[in-house]
């Protein structure tokens, strides 16, 4: 089985005024292809920091990180951007859809950025909206969608360029229990269909749906 995430001794430190904050203290983690991993732990334990490093939107202070066989811990901004576009899918707690765009256009955004032509892009976006059950809502703007629907559009957007890794940061954090349960089911379906998922969560139900749960405390993996 292919290793998708290979993190070795990741350290991330921030400077806050005179003080240095040790957000990650030598985290090592391996995630295999088609795995569904949940990272849990108390607030401030470094879960989101680790997710940011895995998503190549932040750089470790030290340590090595490979995603899908490529070293990513020292990529230039342009290469990191391209890597995120093609290999990483992001789902955020607050959905973060472009309010000015329709559901379909939101899904098309990363496809357009990747250079896909108009017709192909439209077909792919509709296919993804169909997958998340929102085909009929393609022309709706985020403000016309419920929270659960917005999160499903965000998932469709994250899957647009067939990423090697789907990262989700508290994806049920803004949803009610019923919609959260639907989201968990969608993540399970995604994983069953072959998507490798790493999710950061406080939601026990979502963590339980994962095949492996990683516990963090004080910037370290404790179990």
């Amino acid at each position, binding site marked *: 089985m292919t290793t998708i995430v290979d993190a070795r001794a990741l350290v991330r430190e921030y400077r806050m005024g005179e003080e240095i904050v040790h957000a990650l203290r030598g985290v090592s983690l391996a995630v295999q292809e088609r795995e569904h991993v949940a990272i849990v732990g108390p607030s401030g334990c470094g879960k989101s920091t680790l997710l*940011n490093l895995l998503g190549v939107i932040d750089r470790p202070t030290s340590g090595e990180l490979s995603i899908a066989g490529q070293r990513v811990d020292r990529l230039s901004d342009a290469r990191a*951007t391209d890597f995120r576009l093609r290999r*990483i899918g992001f789902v955020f707690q607050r959905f973060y859809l*472009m309010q*000015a765009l329709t559901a379909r*256009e939101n899904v098309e955004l990363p496809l*357009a950025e990747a250079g896909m032509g108009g017709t192909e892009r439209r077909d792919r976006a509709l296919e993804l909206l169909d997958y998340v059950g929102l085909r009929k809502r393609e022309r709706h703007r985020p403000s016309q969608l419920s929270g659960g629907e917005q999160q499903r559009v965000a998932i469709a957007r994250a899957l647009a360029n067939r990423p090697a890794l789907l990262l989700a940061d508290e994806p049920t954090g803004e949803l009610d229990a019923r919609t959260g349960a639907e989201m968990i089911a969608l993540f399970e379906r995604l994983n069953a269909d072959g998507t490798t998922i790493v999710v950061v969560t406080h939601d026990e139900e979502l963590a339980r749906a994962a095949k492996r749960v990683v516990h963090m405390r004080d910037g370290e993996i404790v179990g």
Partner: protein
Amino acid sequence: MIATLAFASLRRHRARTALAVLGVAVSAAMLLDMVMLSSGMRESFRGLLLSQGFQLRLSPKGTLPFDTEATIRAADSLVALLRARPTVEAVSPVLGGQLHFPVAGATVTSTALGVDPAVQGDYELVAGRNPVAPDEIVANDAVLRALGRSIGDTVRAASGYDPQLRTLSGQRVLRIVGRVRFVYLALDQRAAALPIGTLRAMNGPGATDRASLVMVRLRQGADVEREREALLAQLRTVTVISTSEALRQVDERLSYFRQLAVILGAVSLVVGFLLVTTLVTVSVNERIGEISVMRAIGVRRWRVVAQILLESSVIMLAASPIGLALGLVTARWLNSILARFPGLPERIDFFLFQPSAAWTALGLLALCGVLAGVYPSWRGASQPIATTLRQEAVG
């Protein structure tokens, strides 16, 4: 997609965008007016000088045309000499003076121009005909109105008036044969023209063979500057100025106008620039999370920059036509005010519209629009993604 996002961002706060566009339009109007002012008077004056086709003007040594009451001696022989030159097509001598018309116990005074009606370049005939006979005169509306006369009437005129003794000298009875508009005189300035011989005779022996100014029209293809130099070398008692030389002298006298126009134009451009920069920076700050998400999902930095530059440029370009229209309206209004300035030729425009002025203003605005987006686009595209998203999540 980037264009869609840029336009959507502008539409998101319609009222704010509309106010910014209006603000920039006012700034653009002022810029256009200043560009028009910086070249308008010069071009207007140039058009005025060339309107009757005379390219050279001869005045008494050391003076500008009608700058003083000095006159050229032996003007007839000068005119004959000029007419004999193969490059010269027409020569028009002009004698300046005053006419006093006794009317019902009062005296109406007007500017008088003694001209050669066959080649004169000082007035345009509105009605009637040129004064051909020695006792004929043409006058503008201001004189006819003041005298209460019209074409066909006779009028008593004098070239001199002693206010202490209240006596007139050099009197003639003249017949009004035309209504005219003087090219180089102010709108409400009373003026009349009559054959130069008549005015000389009315002025007495001292004015015999005199002219205030001689205008020369060269044949097509003649080199004006070369002809000017040749005349300067040949004639010792006159100053010869060409249209370009006159413009140079006008340029010197109007240089403060241009400096003022450039400074005010630059100020209006800076105001527009700051307005757009502020608006777009506020807009970028409001959606910094959205921009960070775009970067997180793989949207390239330059596309973010392009989107924000597009927003600032759109504001500038949307404001341009409004500013252009507003600028033209205000220019016309200001022109009408300044046209009442005493002694200014009727045809002089301070704000002369030329396509080049509009293009210059548009070019400056477009450049300003792009530059106005530089800071906010840099700010938007250079935010650390992870930190910004964390702050957004906390906020």
